[in-house]
């Protein structure tokens, strides 16, 4: 095909693009993926029975604040790496802030608990399932973000994959929190973080293949 002809046919399909197209596109991917994840939680796991009341308690809020904080940092990073001229993001280290804060809460919790209760507190009743469930639940959101990227132009595909995985993991974990009855900070900082790390690692490993354009 001659380049001139290509230009004619491309320009012929020129549709208006919103000034906030990146944000809109990411929001659609996140919401669509999140809806699938929520449906999975409802269909296979169910909400925790005490949910309306539990939403007001400190443990539930701590857990939600942790995963939402990670999700916010991750989404900002995703919006950054979605542009081709993106430079290395200095603000990306902010992602450690929620982890450090929750880690400190976990330390306080351990310090104020007799040591014979440490192990049951840390493992809760669902440590075997927690990380894997978070990993699986993040998958639809990850796929949603892959769709979002199709009109965007990431050039550092490993970073783009990792940040998309982190965002998917953090959102998936937030929705899993609607089911999960665990209360201790040490549980959340370990098993939730591990669960979120799974899609992050998958994104970093497969980003260069999945996001190529």
């Amino acid at each position, binding site marked *: 095909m001659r*380049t001139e002809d290509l230009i004619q046919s491309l*320009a012929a399909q020129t549709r*208006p693009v919103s000034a906030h197209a990146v944000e809109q596109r990411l929001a659609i991917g996140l919401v669509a993926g999140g809806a699938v994840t929520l449906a999975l939680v409802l269909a296979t796991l169910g909400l925790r029975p005490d949910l309306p009341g539990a939403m007001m308690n400190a443990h539930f809020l701590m857990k939600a604040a942790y995963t939402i904080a990670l999700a916010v940092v991750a989404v900002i990073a995703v919006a950054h790496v979605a542009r*081709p001229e993106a*430079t290395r993001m200095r603000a990306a280290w902010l992602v450690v802030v929620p982890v450090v804060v929750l880690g400190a809460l976990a330390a306080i919790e351990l310090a104020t608990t007799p040591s014979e209760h440490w192990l049951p507190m840390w493992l809760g009743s669902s440590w075997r399932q927690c990380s894997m469930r978070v990993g699986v639940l993040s998958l639809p959101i990850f796929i949603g973000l892959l769709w979002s990227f199709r009109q965007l132009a990431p050039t550092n595909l490993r970073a783009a994959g990792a940040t998309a995985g982190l965002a998917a993991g953090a959102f998936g974990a937030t929705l899993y929190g609607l089911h999960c009855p665990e209360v201790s900070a040490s549980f959340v900082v370990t098993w939730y973080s591990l669960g979120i790390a799974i899609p992050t690692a998958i994104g970093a490993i497969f980003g260069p293949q999945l996001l190529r*354009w």
Partner: protein
Amino acid sequence: MASEDQLKGWMVRGLDGDAAAQNRLLTALAPMMRSFFARRLRGAGDDVEDLVQDTLIAIHTRRASYDRDRPFTAWAYAVARYKMIDHFRRQRQHVSFEGLEDILVAEGYQDAASAKMDVDGLLGEISPKQASAIRRTKIDGLSVAEAAEADGISEADVKVSVHRGLKALAARLKGK
């Protein structure tokens, strides 16, 4: 030849749905991309034209990733640079030892990206004309002629701007 302001104007109007502006933009970009790739892929004419077309398609279909508050040429060349790296990577896959070199390319690219932030800060301290001339010739890797075209100034002006700009930068670095 189109300047940053002209290109950006067409781009923004294209984003608003103006097909004629989009046509002018892509038409103006084609020769810029052609010389960008030709200088980097010596004597591979077919590859150059393939890359030009690939890049124009990407610029058109992924224009949502352009932020209207930022320079347009930097965005367009970032797309072109990605297409070139992708091209080299694909070629290398035919020639075997991809693994290690793939990593090296990716790493080097990241380093270049992080160094760029410091460079952006420094270039912000000298006159925009000098900064632009240095950015185009020393960072984007354009020839003096391409930089002159892109900024709509003469080649001599580019050379002088680069020279004075580098001198000003050196003076600032010594002062720090």
